[in-house]
């Protein structure tokens, strides 16, 4: 993944809680075998509504999404992260997130900034007053900032995720530094192999 240090851009307020991954990218879009092109499906069931905030021209081109509590709960589909990034979002700010979504985001370099509900509401109010406001998400410093208001809130980031974001490290590469440990583990563990359970056609071998 690409290294990400700082995100500076406009932000769009999505004033809903429990935005689950089925809303972020409806399942009809999950049939595709590609990893790109999901931006068109982002929030697709809501985008027909002209009053939906992503249809508000004043927020066009925003790179930061500000949302209510429990963003990204539900299904494990990483397609939700691909859709948000393909659409142009680089960071999501919310009071809480679904665990699997948070994890998937970290693999793709989508920055998850968790700040308190009151702070999210204050940030949303700023954006309603001025949609062109510049919002800064600083991964290195762990800060969400609105320079025009001198407003600044810190967010916690797992130190390992922070390092990976800042360096653009590939998880598999990091793990393979421990390949010797994996091989050692495999010589001692009890994991029962499926070999001998199924034949080549996947039928159960009768013993």
């Amino acid at each position, binding site marked *: 993944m690409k290294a990400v240090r700082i995100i500076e851009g406009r932000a769009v307020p999505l004033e809903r*809680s*429990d935005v*689950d991954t*089925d*809303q972020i990218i*409806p*399942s*009809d879009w*999950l*049939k*595709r*075998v590609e*990893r790109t092109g999901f931006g068109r499906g982002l929030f697709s*069931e809501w985008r027909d509504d002209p009053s939906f905030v992503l249809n508000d021209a004043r927020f066009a081109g925003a790179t930061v999404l500000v949302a*209510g*509590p*429990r963003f990204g*709960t*539900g*299904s*494990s*589909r*990483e*397609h939700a*992260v691909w859709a948000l990034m393909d659409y142009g979002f680089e960071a999501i700010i919310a009071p*809480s*997130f*679904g*665990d*699997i979504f948070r*994890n*998937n985001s970290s*693999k*793709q370099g989508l920055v998850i900034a968790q700040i308190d509900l009151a702070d999210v509401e204050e940030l949303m109010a700023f954006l309603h007053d001025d949609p062109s406001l510049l919002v800064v998400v600083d991964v290195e410093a762990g800060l969400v900032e609105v320079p025009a208001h001198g407003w600044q809130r810190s967010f916690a980031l*797992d*130190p*390992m995720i922070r390092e990976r974001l800042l360096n653009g490290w590939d*998880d*598999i590469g*990091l*793990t*393979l530094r*421990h390949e010797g*440990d*994996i091989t050692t*583990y*495999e010589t001692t*563990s*009890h*994991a*029962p*192999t*499926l*070999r001998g*359970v*199924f034949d080549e056609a*996947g*039928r*159960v071998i009768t*013993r």
Partner: protein
Amino acid sequence: MTARTLYEKIWEEHLVASPPGESSVIYIDLHLVHEVTSPQAFDGLRLNGRGVRRPDLTLATADHNVPTEPMSVPVTDPISRRQLEALEENCAEFGITVFPRGHENQGIVHIIGPELGVTQPGMTIVCGDSHTSTHGAFGALAFGIGTSEVEHVLATQTLPQQRAKTMAVNVEGQAPVDVSAKDIVLAIVATLGTGGGAGYVIEYGGQAIRDLSMEGRMTLCNMSIEAGARAGLVAVDETTIDYLRGRPGVPSGEKFEEAATRWRSLVSDDDAHFDAVVTLDAQSLVPFVTWGTNPAQVVALSGVVPDPASFEDPDLASTTRRSLAYMGLTPGTPMKDIAVDVVFIGSCTNSRIEDLRAAAAVAQGHHVAESVRALVVPGSHRVKRQAETEGIDQVFLDAGFEWREPGCSMCLGMNPDQLTSGQRSASTSNRNFEGRQGRGGRTHLVSPVVAAATAILGRFATPDEVGA
């Protein structure tokens, strides 16, 4: 030695490396794969010139996209067909056992692992699917992962992980006879909320949990993710071991007894510490139904649609208003006055043989209401064959239900079984999200017996209303 929870025991057993200041690397004993979340992972392997480290610990099945029509009906959606073909091609290329559509062992990924006995106590199990928590019923640490992690497990048979917090959810006392595992888990999700379990692995305990069959425990653990917890666990007991004996994936004879002895140690120590403890009184539980657009929005079948004005929290009030508008419901309406268009009995939550037996017992001798389409979708070909041996298919067919081929079906809108906009369903699945069963569809989650009674009366109903 300090007392440990079941989660801690499995975690420590699977530590491959714990580099200071970094995530731990844990070994994965079983990787289940389906067609939706894997194609991009296999592509990633090819791009980077990597192979599958342990194809013998990897098992694949087609489930989300498969039409539930007989094999004579082709997959007409070209995008679905391509994804199903990609699974077969990828498994052939990397030497992975796969059960394609129509295969004798094919079924929903979380149904086939347990029934084939490849899901076993003490294992670490992952799948690119959030309902992987199902397998926790066996005292296995099982959780859903994203596609990047699928690729990671294919390449390394490990995952970088942070240790989770632990939560004990104890359902004390004996549950009333009309309360099913589905009602228990709906009550738990309602208690914890959709985010209450975030960051935790839940261990379920208490008499009402111990009293559940393995299939009931799978229903329970399945919906752990609906409370935000990636994994749910039930400690091993004789119910677990009896279920596994004789299944294809477990050893036989003396070897099985040796394994069983090891498995019996997979319980939390008596004085183990949990980071959070939640207790429910089983006696207070009743048959439940969801009224809104997230699985924590639960009410008793005998209750009414809630009034947003009754919530003090303004966020909750506005969420409720939004949910009710989507669901087309009026506050104060008795749930049992609400008519449904479609009844769906199926999904990784409730499509096992016991679910079908229970629903058939309610349907027997009755007929589906004229205004209702009712589908029964067995979780796997094995479940389907078993049901047909018992004559359960005929009970459903005589009562006017459709008896279909295995797959995820109407749990999510990825195959032809979908709600149309505005249609209302009583569904034994796990998510009532907006559009989950088809764009504009309105989903109410219920147990299999409530689904069957509802199909017959054409409105939400409990089995006693049809004399069951």
